[in-house]
């Protein structure tokens, strides 16, 4: 007895138009075919087909793009957003990590008692340098905590509340790890920033170059991010949204008022160039090494800034409008 419904059932299934009952029938049939078909391709056929298809895959233009992406230059600007629970460091699972020397990594909750070195950015964005050479711009109102033995034997770990830009000094033997609530971001050699917003369930990470591996420690969901992409984890610790964003726009906050907190001129040069819009040339090595704490206002003109900054540094400067450069030299005694 033929039931006319089944004529269309495959098309419906492929189009997602089946009822649940129809789905069960189709899939049940699939299972029964798998179980009850004694014939199978010969080993030779399996091997031959394997080769044939692989050949076609290699010729696939999309695949060539992968080769190119992995082999080519890639400047990565990524944005990741994910949910977290502000001020609730409910890391319920201890995820042991084996570093090169097989040491255990403690989640933030356990190292509460021995935290050291806390950076606050009270009134404005603050740039600072970490012991390992990494540079951080901490956004106004944010806090960065370096966990025990930062730059110690095996890891560089920090805890972030608020928003910060990181430019991580490369060190493959000591992974740089940032904890924000339930999310652990492992840095694979890169520069990026992270934003957490109190009261909202989002954490955003913006990467300038390199790669970031992001893991939600509750759901064990693991993500790696590519250029200009944003991922948002929902309250359930699973991925809610994944989309493209303009990472450069997201980073605009760095261009607001910036305070340099005990940084050397050498480290500050990039930010100064970015903020002032001029290329900065400093040849004197002693001057480059000088550290300072000073503020740069966002809309300040180069001329106005250099006038006071140079006095602060006890240096002389020359602005070349044609070449858009500023050269700074120590004041002749």
């Amino acid at each position, binding site marked *: 007895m033929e*039931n006319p419904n*089944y004529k269309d*059932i*495959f*098309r419906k*299934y*492929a*189009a997602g138009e089946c009822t*649940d009952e129809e*789905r*069960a029938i189709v*899939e*049940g*049939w*699939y*299972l029964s*075919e*798998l179980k009850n078909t004694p*014939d199978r*391709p010969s080993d030779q*056929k*399996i091997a031959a*087909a394997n080769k*044939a*298809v*692989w050949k076609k*895959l290699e010729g*696939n233009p*999309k*695949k060539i793009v*992968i*080769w190119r992406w*992995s*082999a*080519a*230059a*890639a*400047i990565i600007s990524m944005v990741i957003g994910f949910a977290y629970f502000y001020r609730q460091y409910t890391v319920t*699972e201890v*995820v*042991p*990590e*084996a570093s*090169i020397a097989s040491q255990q990594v403690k989640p933030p909750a356990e190292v509460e008692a021995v935290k050291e070195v806390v950076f606050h950015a009270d009134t404005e964005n603050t740039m600072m340098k970490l012991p390992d050479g990494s540079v951080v711009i901490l956004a106004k109102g944010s806090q960065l905590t370096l966990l025990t033995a930062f730059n110690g034997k095996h890891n560089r770990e920090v805890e972030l509340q608020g928003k910060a830009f990181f430019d991580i000094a*490369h060190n*493959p033997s000591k992974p740089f790890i940032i904890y924000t609530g339930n999310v652990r971001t492992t840095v*694979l*050699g890169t520069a990026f920033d992270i934003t957490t917003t109190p009261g909202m369930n989002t954490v955003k990470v913006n990467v*300038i*170059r*390199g*790669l970031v591996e992001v893991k939600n420690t509750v759901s064990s*969901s693991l*993500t*790696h991010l*590519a250029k200009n992409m944003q991922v948002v984890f929902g309250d359930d610790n699973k*991925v809610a949204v994944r989309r493209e964003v303009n990472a450069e726009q997201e980073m605009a906050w760095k261009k607001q008022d910036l305070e340099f907190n005990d940084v050397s001129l050498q480290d500050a*040069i*990039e930010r100064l*160039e970015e903020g002032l819009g001029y290329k900065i040339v400093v040849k004197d090595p002693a001057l480059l090494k000088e550290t300072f704490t000073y503020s740069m206002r966002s809309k300040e003109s180069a001329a106005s800034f250099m006038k006071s900054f140079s006095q602060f540094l006890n240096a002389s400067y020359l602005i070349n409008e044609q070449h858009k450069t500023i050269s700074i030299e120590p004041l002749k005694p």
Partner: protein
Amino acid sequence: MKKHLHDSDLELLSEFKMGSPAAFKVIYERYWQLLYVAACKVLKDEDEAEDVVQEVFVSLLNKRDSLELSGALSSYLFTSVRYKVFDFISRKKVRLSYEESINQYVIQGNCNTDQALIEKEINATMEQEIQNLPKKMKEVFELSRKSELSHKEIATALNISDKTVKKQISNALKLLKPRFTNYYLWMFSFFFWPFR
């Protein structure tokens, strides 16, 4: 290629998403037989099965950037094959034999209506094909399964693959322009990943 041979599915997936062609090849080699044999059994045609499995891997490639698996790689691949098989059947001009087959299946009764259960059973049945794999491949499969059983081992495995990637990035970063170049210049500087 040998370097990824013993990676767990999770590690492979992670490497694959980061653009590793080697990881993709290992995934292909690891799952080819399971997927192909299953497609053969349902479609009853070896050439068509070949096309279907090819499509599955092409899709995987195309989705590399957006892939977010909540379950196992194996389940994802098994399900992909299933959908492709049905899609394939639905496009065939002559579907009569399949329709008759389904009719028979329904008439015989014994139809399970629990979809979740059916899917589980499908995956289990496909996994049975592991027994027919060449010895070495079978071992690799079983090892990679073991390494997924323990959460601890997953974390360890991730760190291992972390390091593999880090090593390659470290090679690449050595070629980066010095840091005190103009910021925007720097942003557009290039580095090379010697993945191959």
